[in-house]
């Protein structure tokens, strides 16, 4: 069923130009619609995007929405950008996972958990916009505190930090553990 066509068009355009993800509340305010209607329209749009001939998708980040491309078309975009997406190094992934779970956290704390210096990996993560400086910790030297960014969520296709798997022992399957340690 098609309904509210002008509003659906406006919603799509807003998600298209959104720099930061737009909350349903903000969308409702701009489009002068109530939340239930916004959710309905988002659902409509999602359905429209679900077809195989569509390369776009609605990304949900921290309860907000914006448009992005479907993972299956990624390789074409990488050709356009002339850079095969560079995967993060193991060191960077380790530092990133520590920051993701323990944020906000200082470099010293990351170093301690990993047992090695993490300057370089941390600098790479900041440069890629996956991690940012969020202030300073009280105490000697007032070290900088780091936390993950929205870009981090986007990069890993997470809707929010709650989407991260539990860190407690046993939450990873034995296979995963084995493959990690091999």
């Amino acid at each position: 069923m098609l309904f509210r066509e002008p509003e659906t068009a406006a919603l799509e355009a807003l998600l298209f130009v959104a720099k930061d993800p737009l909350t349903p509340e903000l969308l409702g305010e701009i489009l002068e619609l109530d939340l239930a209607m916004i959710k309905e329209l988002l659902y409509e749009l999602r359905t429209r995007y679900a077809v195989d001939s569509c390369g776009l998708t609605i990304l949900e980040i921290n309860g907000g929405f914006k448009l992005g491309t479907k993972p299956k078309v990624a390789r074409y975009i990488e050709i356009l950008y002339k850079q095969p997406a560079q995967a993060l190094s193991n060191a960077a992934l380790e530092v990133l996972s520590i920051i993701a779970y323990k944020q906000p956290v200082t470099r010293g704390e990351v170093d301690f958990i990993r047992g090695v210096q993490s300057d370089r990996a941390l600098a790479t993560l900041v440069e890629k916009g996956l991690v940012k400086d969020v202030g300073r910790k009280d105490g000697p030297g007032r070290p900088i505190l780091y936390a993950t960014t929205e870009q981090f969520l986007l990069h890993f296709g997470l809707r929010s930090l709650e989407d991260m798997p539990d860190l407690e022992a046993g939450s990873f399957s034995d296979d995963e553990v084995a493959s990690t340690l091999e």
Partner: protein
Amino acid sequence: MERENTGHQVELPAYQGPLDLLLTLIQQEKVDIYDIPIARVADQFVEAVRQMESMDMEVTTEFLVLAAQLLYIKSRELLPKPPKSEQNPVEEEDLRQELVERLLAYRAFKQAAKVLENLETSSGRSYYREINVEGLLTNVKPEDPLKGIDFDDLWQAFCRVIERAEKGEEIRYVEPDEIAIDIMLADVLRRVLLHPKGLRFNQLMRIGTRMEMIVSFLALLELLKSGKVRAEQVTLLSEIMLYPTEKAWEFTEEE
């Protein structure tokens, strides 16, 4: 998106650090992490570090520290056990316990890193547009920036200027506050290093008290002088951008 370093099998194992090496050894031994055969693992650890040295791989002090710690625990275990009333066994247990806890924590994050890596290739890889807000608004007429301002306001502003000019400058004494310049030096350099694409000067000066800003500025001057940091300003009114130089990295490696 093939990971460049997929070939763990063919490459020499590059350990992320001493904890990584120790975990690998424990895994090879197929023993419970709570029940590490310290004597055997300690010897293997020392042997692995020797091999790394002989292959010119990076052996940082962290490896040596952990090797020493393992050997210490091993030596304690080999000594005849003193009577229970004494405190030594407790200390030995503590060392072991502490090590196990660090290993468990590290292993958990290593596993989490693996999960992230999988996510990166599966659900991630979504691209989005770079949004140029100014471009979007090129056809939008901006609101009058002088809204609500009349000649009287302009006149009042001019009067304030004249009044101040007549009064002369107010001299204020800054309370001394101790911030060691070398701490700030490292601190400023670190922040610049973390922005290889350039740190805005204003951003550097953003945080802290007046004294902190002054000391950061002095530190910055020192870094510019020693050539570890480079400053650029494209046009007169544009922001001053700070960039780390090659020399800046030498510093962190020494550290």
